[in-house]
């Protein structure tokens, strides 16, 4: 299984903090983003934004980053701490 987390504005927009996906059908972050962007207009809007950030196992990643069973993905808007 792959765990996908959403933070801040995205969590509120989707009404989803976390979901699980079967690992078999996905080999990169891009595959997951494509799958999720088909789940409705809110989902689509997130993955359409150029500045959406993604982390794999709590490290910054890219659309091309590979994923495997047991990974933790997170999608979030640009950070605004400090």
């Amino acid at each position, binding site marked *: 299984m792959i765990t996908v*987390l959403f*933070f*801040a*504005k995205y969590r509120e927009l989707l009404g989803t903090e976390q979901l699980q996906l079967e690992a078999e059908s996905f080999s990169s972050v891009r595959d997951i983003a494509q799958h999720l962007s088909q789940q409705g207009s809110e989902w689509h809007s997130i993955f359409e934004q150029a*500045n959406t*950030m993604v*982390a794999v196992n*709590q*490290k*910054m990643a890219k659309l091309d980053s590979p994923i495997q069973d047991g990974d933790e993905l*997170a999608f*979030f*808007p*640009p*950070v*605004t*701490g*400090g």
Partner: protein
Amino acid sequence: MFVRVQKEDFSLKLVEERFSEYTKLQGAKIGAIVTFTGLVREFQHTSEDQEEVQALILEHYPGMTESVLEQIAQTAIKKWQLNDMLIIHRVGTLFPTDNIVLVAAASAHRQDAFDACQYAMDILKTSAPFWKKEQTNKGERWVDAKSSDYNAAGQWITQDLQEN
């Protein structure tokens, strides 16, 4: 190196205690300590609509946040040969005048400590997974990232590329 994400307030006393502990163990190597404190300030969006920020809610990605802050401190310590660095960032609901973030650097000479604090804040602002939500008298809204913050962080990356 000391890194912490916490709900509780912090005091500058912590900087003193941390670095005097270093001196006890390593001898009088520290010649300069620079600290930066970020606070919640009063803020009105525009004078016409009177929308006033009453509180900030700070959200973070537990685990990743701490490791990004550790990475920032480690990089700064190496880049400027610091004696030590401390980063504390608060989360939860904060009000005007509250402390948000503390960065402190100890080094042999002042310029290194100044630069290291500047670097840590610039990188923290664009790469540590924290998000601010404003509570105003008109409702709630997520704070948008500022391009000026990304430009500030980008300068360090450009500098690194030129040096290497």
